[in-house]
């Protein structure tokens, strides 16, 4: 049977679908707005628990562009993990995520214009070490991971990268960060990278990710030119979004980016192309949830102009 396209009209008519795709495609802030707009009732009950996502910000975090203070970023990370795991202190929180016998690949991102800050890589590595993992069993990298036995044969992954708009997939965020796990990247390009979630089912990836950290220090909310980067289109958000579910974390990040675009341009300016791979990671590949009603967003720290 030929699958039906997801159209604006369908999202306007179908509240259930809109609660997943509404904010990703239509810049709807949440399902209450959708219900109001469409005249339909809000869904209120779901089986199972909501997935927790932690947004944490510190207004004094940055010492320069994309450069956080080492002590502050460490503190933010620890607070986020404590909140996410629901335990009393950061040592116990990290022990819940990582065991001493784990072999841990920290999948970073070294895109030249907006890389994962080294200060955050150091902070994550310290936390993993604190959990009892020896140095030789930890690797931090972006390129070359398929030649790195820690990534290919390891037991645990931590996924960390900055949020940015992307010329072909809408955004470059956590779901896309595992593209280095394949040699055949062009195979994932069709239909504006619609099926990036397939990466998360690769044998060396599936079930190994313990933590996802979307870096929102100076997110890129709009791209121009062949580099798709200009500092004019970044801003000091000074935050991290942390969670177990990469789809939920990415979808929160997209909402913030869309809100920033609206504020900056003075009108709705949808991501071009839309970040459909995040929507499809939920609805087609069942990697996680993009449904706003199934996400529990916990906010910590400075929340001025949080845009969410």
């Amino acid at each position: 049977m030929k699958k039906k396209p997801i159209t604006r009209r369908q999202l306007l008519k179908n509240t259930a679908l809109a609660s997943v795709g509404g904010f990703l495609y239509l810049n709807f802030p949440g399902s209450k707005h959708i219900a109001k707009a469409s005249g339909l009732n809000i869904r209120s009950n779901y089986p199972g628990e909501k997935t927790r996502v932690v947004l944490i910000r510190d207004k004094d975090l940055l010492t320069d562009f994309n450069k956080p203070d080492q002590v502050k970023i460490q503190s933010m990370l620890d607070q986020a993990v404590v909140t996410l795991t629901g335990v009393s202190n950061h040592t116990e929180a990290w022990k819940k995520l990582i065991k001493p016998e784990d072999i841990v690949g920290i999948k970073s991102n070294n895109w030249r214009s907006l890389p994962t800050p080294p200060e955050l890589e150091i902070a994550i590595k310290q936390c993993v070490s604190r959990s009892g993992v020896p140095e030789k069993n930890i690797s931090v990298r972006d390129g070359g991971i398929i030649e790195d036995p820690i990534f290919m044969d390891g037991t645990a992954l931590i996924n960390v990268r900055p949020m940015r708009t992307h010329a072909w997939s809408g955004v470059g965020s956590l779901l896309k960060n595992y593209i280095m796990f394949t040699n055949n990247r062009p195979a994932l390009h069709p239909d504006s990278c619609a099926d990036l979630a397939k990466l998360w089912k690769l044998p060396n990836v599936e079930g190994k990710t313990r933590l996802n950290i979307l870096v929102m220090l100076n997110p890129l909310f709009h791209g121009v030119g062949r580099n798709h980067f200009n500092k004019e289109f970044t801003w000091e958000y000074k935050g991290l979004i942390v969670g177990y579910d990469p789809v939920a974390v990415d979808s929160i990040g997209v909402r913030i980016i869309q809100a920033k675009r609206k504020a900056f341009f003075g009108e709705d300016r949808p991501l071009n192309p839309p970040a459909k791979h995040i929507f499809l990671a939920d609805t087609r590949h069942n990697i996680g949830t993009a449904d706003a009603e199934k996400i529990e967003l916990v906010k910590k720290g400075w929340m001025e102009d949080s845009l969410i």
Partner: protein
Amino acid sequence: MAIRKKYLLLLLILVPPLMTSSAKTLNQYLPKAVNGWVTVGEDHYYNPETLFDYINGGAELFISYDFEQVISRTYKKSGQPDITVEIFDMIKAKNAFGVFTHARESVDSIFGQGSQTFEGAILFWKDRYYISIVSDEETGDSKKAQVAMAKKIDKAIKQTGMLPEILDWIPESLLVPESIFYFHHYVWLNAFYYISDENLLNITDKTDAVLAKYGEPEKRYYLLIIQYPDNNLAGDAYKNFAEQYAPEIKTHPVVKLEDGKWIACKVDHDLFVCVFNAHEEKNAGTLLKTVLEKHSSSGE
């Protein structure tokens, strides 16, 4: 098999000279030095197969506009940021214009047939070429050098290119001029306004499509025009769109949707026209009617 070998041999003889010729063509537009910035190292060339190595993540944008080749040259000056200049050969002027419309925030023709200046960057198009002049950081001197480079390249490219014919059908009243966005790959259909995640209008490299914004930001509405290779393809696209999006347009071209906004759609020979998100019925209907009148009066 013998015939295949013969063709392979012919290709080996012909292709390298052709590549050299094309490379030379791009090379000749670049200055050797500007304001103390000089060329360091060799020029680099990339084609559709190798562009991913150069701008992984950004290559698809150019490939969706039939990109053929790019030359990249870096200029250096002591104590100043490097400046990288690229000339993308997009085969046709309409493709160069299309890529340019992705970054256009204002109407500006200081360089070439349209240009845009950002911090550390000048982007412009002329004839079949899209030109990018970029430095990671900007100083007063580097900006002056970028401007000088843009002027030299603009002067070196003698020809100007024809804009796509489809732009002729865009009405000017209430138009946001810098919003005109030209494309022929369905991925860009949702540039201003999400319509669908699938190619329900059968946009291909044989179709020309344009989006444009109208009205004030708080009451923005959008025009989509698609020109198909023939009337049958336009009719098929209209039928599919009506079935998947708004069956009501088959009986009345102007329809109010669930969000209270108006949509107005029609097909006219090879042209599909649709107005989205109009806050008032009159705006949707008038814009649709004006496009169709312009198209009819052109003798198409």
